[in-house]
């Protein structure tokens, strides 16, 4: 079954951005991340492909300021998936390449014309940049 056009076009937009973008469906399953996000996450999307929420939320290990693992429910994207509202947080991510990177993340809901919740997108920024 085809994705909603809003999701299709978000992926298309992501392909033209230098800002890392991570796109999930309403269940939180990873649909796509763009090339700039590949650098932060440490692996090309073509290698990981789409992933269930439980898989990606543990694969890209998020850590708090003290180095303790952040539970999934504290991640902006998960907050957006639960509340359907934007969310923001700074944290450290350990990508699939094993490198620690401090990042800030803003996530936004993707809501259709009739207020249907279609998914969410997270925009990343590496703080060391």
């Amino acid at each position, binding site marked *: *079954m*085809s*994705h909603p*056009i809003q999701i*299709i*076009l978000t*992926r298309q937009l992501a*392909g033209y951005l230098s800002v890392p973008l991570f796109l999930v469906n309403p269940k939180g399953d990873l649909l796509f991340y763009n090339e700039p996000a590949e650098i932060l996450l440490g692996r090309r999307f073509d290698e990981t492909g789409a992933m269930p929420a439980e898989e990606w939320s543990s694969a890209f290990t998020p850590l708090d300021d003290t180095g303790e693992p952040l539970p999934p429910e504290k991640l902006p994207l998960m907050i957006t998936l639960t509340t359907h509202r934007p969310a923001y947080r700074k944290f450290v991510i350990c990508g699939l390449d094993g490198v620690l990177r401090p990042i800030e993340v803003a996530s936004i809901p993707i809501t*259709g*014309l009739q207020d249907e919740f279609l998914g969410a997108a997270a925009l990343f920024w590496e703080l060391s940049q």
Partner: protein
Amino acid sequence: MMRLTLFGTRGSLAAPGAETTRYGGNTSSVEVRESDGTVLVLDAGTGIRRLGTQIPPSTARVDILLTHLHMDHIQGLGFFGPLYDPRVDVHIWGPASSTLSLEARLSRYLSPPLFPVHLRDLPRVTCHHVPRLPFDIGPFHVQTSLVCHPGPTVGYRIQSEGGAAAYLPDHEPILALRNGQWREPEWISGYDLAAGADLLIHDAQYTDEEYKQRVGWGHSSYSQTFKFAGYVGAKELVPFHHDPSHDDETLDHLLENTRLQFQPRFGVSAGEEGAVFELTSK
């Protein structure tokens, strides 16, 4: 049996004249009729005026399915005779916007100073937002989906016992392809609507050269449309929504050259005004 008749095939602007007599000058409007007399009208471009004159007087209900509210798809609405007939229920279906109802958006055109009659003054008109889930109108099973075109725009898949017809008159699926590749059907705009359709009526407004200057305007070139039809497995393609600058001779050449280039496995029929297509279950 599902019978589709093209009453308007032109895109963007009506283009009447001696040089467009075969493909026609009227903007988008297609009649879909089932054996029991149920009538759907796809879009209300200028072709809908003549379409309205062909509807039998005994018809009690007509459903107009609008893909979107660009002018070439609604300009004929006020000239659709059944709108003024108190014996006919007219149901108008179209995509919602995030702030205004379909009725409010249509009223921007069907009201002074652009039109002398208010939509609200018409006797038996009901407006509906197209639902996200499939719905039935008489013997027709109607599936809709928002598609790649500027502003809220839907495509339709109409299914009956006769077969399935897909109507995507304004559609630029190539815009959403990853690396320009036709793959991963779930990422192809309009795929679900057109997959395996017995008849695909699809946007083919431009030549490839014209498309390069009009990327993002929401339309496809002939060759893109052939690729889309092949990818979705359509059985017959009708290129549609002809650019107003394309005369009959140009459209003949475009169709023939594209057919020769792709040698498609599916059938291709010219999108000429007055063309009739009959879908019958085999």
